[in-house]
C-alpha cells in the first residue's frame, strides 16, 4: 500500500487512456463473453428448450463423426490417389482407342470412295464390263432363232414327247 501511494504521488511518465479504469470491468466482461458461455444463460427468453443432457450427447456425436472421418481419410487419401490415376489412364486409353477407330473408319471410307477419281472408275468399267457391241454376242440373234425353229419343224412331235417323257423325271413340272 505504501508503494502504491508513493507511486501515485510520484509521476512515472506513464499514463492511461481517459476513463480507462472505469470501463475496464465492462470491457473485461465483454472479452470473457466471447470466450465463455456465461452470456447464454442471460439471453432473453425465447421459449425454446432442449432435451436433457443434449450438449453432452451432441459433443460425443460430433467427435465420433470426426474420428470416423479422420480414419477414413487416411485410407481414402491413398485410395483416391490410386483411383484418380487409374481414372486418368482409363480416359487416355479410351480416348486413344476411340480416335484410332475413328481414324481407321475414315481411312476405310476414304479408300472406298474419296480416293477414287473419275478416271479410275472409267478404266474399271472399260476393263471389266464388256462393251455393248460385245454384250450383244451373248444373246441369240433373230436369224439364229429362225434357224433353230426351222430345225425343230423337221422333228416328229411324237419323238419330242417320248424324249421329254424319258429325260424328265417329273412330267408334271412341265405344266407349271
Amino acid at each position: 500500500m505504501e508503494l502504491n501511494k508513493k507511486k501515485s504521488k510520484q509521476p512515472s511518465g506513464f499514463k492511461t487512456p481517459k476513463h480507462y479504469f472505469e470501463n475496464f470491468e465492462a470491457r473485461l466482461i465483454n472479452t470473457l463473453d466471447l470466450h465463455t458461455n456465461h452470456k447464454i444463460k442471460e439471453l432473453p427468453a425465447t421459449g425454446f428448450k432442449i432435451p436433457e443432457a443434449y450438449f453432452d450427447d451432441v459433443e460425443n456425436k460430433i467427435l465420433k463423426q470426426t474420428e470416423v472421418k479422420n480414419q477414413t481419410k487416411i485410407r481414402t487419401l491413398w485410395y483416391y490417389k490410386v483411383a484418380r490415376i487409374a481414372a486418368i489412364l482409363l480416359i487416355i486409353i479410351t480416348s486413344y482407342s476411340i480416335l484410332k477407330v475413328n481414324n481407321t473408319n475414315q481411312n476405310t471410307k476414304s479408300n472406298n470412295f474419296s480416293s477414287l477419281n473419275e478416271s479410275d472408275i472409267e478404266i474399271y468399267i472399260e476393263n471389266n464390263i464388256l462393251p455393248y457391241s460385245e454384250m450383244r454376242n451373248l444373246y441369240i440373234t433373230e436369224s439364229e432363232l429362225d434357224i433353230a425353229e426351222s430345225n425343230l419343224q423337221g422333228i416328229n412331235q411324237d419323238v419330242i414327247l417320248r424324249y421329254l417323257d424319258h429325260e424328265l423325271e417329273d412330267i408334271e413340272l412341265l405344266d407349271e
Partner: protein
Amino acid sequence: MQDEELVQLLQNPAKKNEAFAILVKEYKIRLYWHIRNFVKIHEDADDVLQNVFIKVFKNIDKFKGESKLYSWMYRIASNESITFLNKKAKKLKISNEEIQDYIINNLESDVYFEGDEIQLKLQKAIATLPEKQRITFNMKYFQEMKYREMAEILNTSIGALKSNYHHAVNKIEDYLKNN
C-alpha cells in the same frame, strides 16, 4: 485458451483431434442457439450444428486467420442454416418465405417449445420479416451480439445492420399492435 492458439493446434495434424474437442466444448452452446434462431426446431438445429462442426473440422486448414475464428464459425453456421432452410422449403415444395410461416405454425405442437403466448406472437412477428432483417434481429435481440461482431460474421457494414434492426423493430411493434 485463446482462439489463435486453438487454431494453431487445430492446424497441427498431431494435435488436431485434441484441439477439436476443446473447440466443440467451447462453441457448441453458442453455435447451437445461433442455429436454433434460424431453424427453430431442435432436431433441425442438431443436424445443422453437427454439419457445421464437421465442416469446421474438414476446412480448418483453409482458415487463414483473416477473420476471427468465432466469426468464421458463425458465418459457416449462418450459411449452413440458410442452406438447410432452403432445402427444406424445396422438399416441401414451398417458397423460401413460406417456410417461415410453416415452421412457426408448427411451433405450438413442438415439444421443445414452451414459450408463452407473447413469445409465440413474437416468433410469428419475426417470421414476417425479410431475411436480412430477421437474421439481424435474431442476432441482436436474442443473442445480444454487438454490431461489430455481426458485421464481421455477416460480412456487411455496421450502418446496414443498424438500419435493418431499426426497421425490424418497427415492423415487429406494428405486428404486435395489430394482431
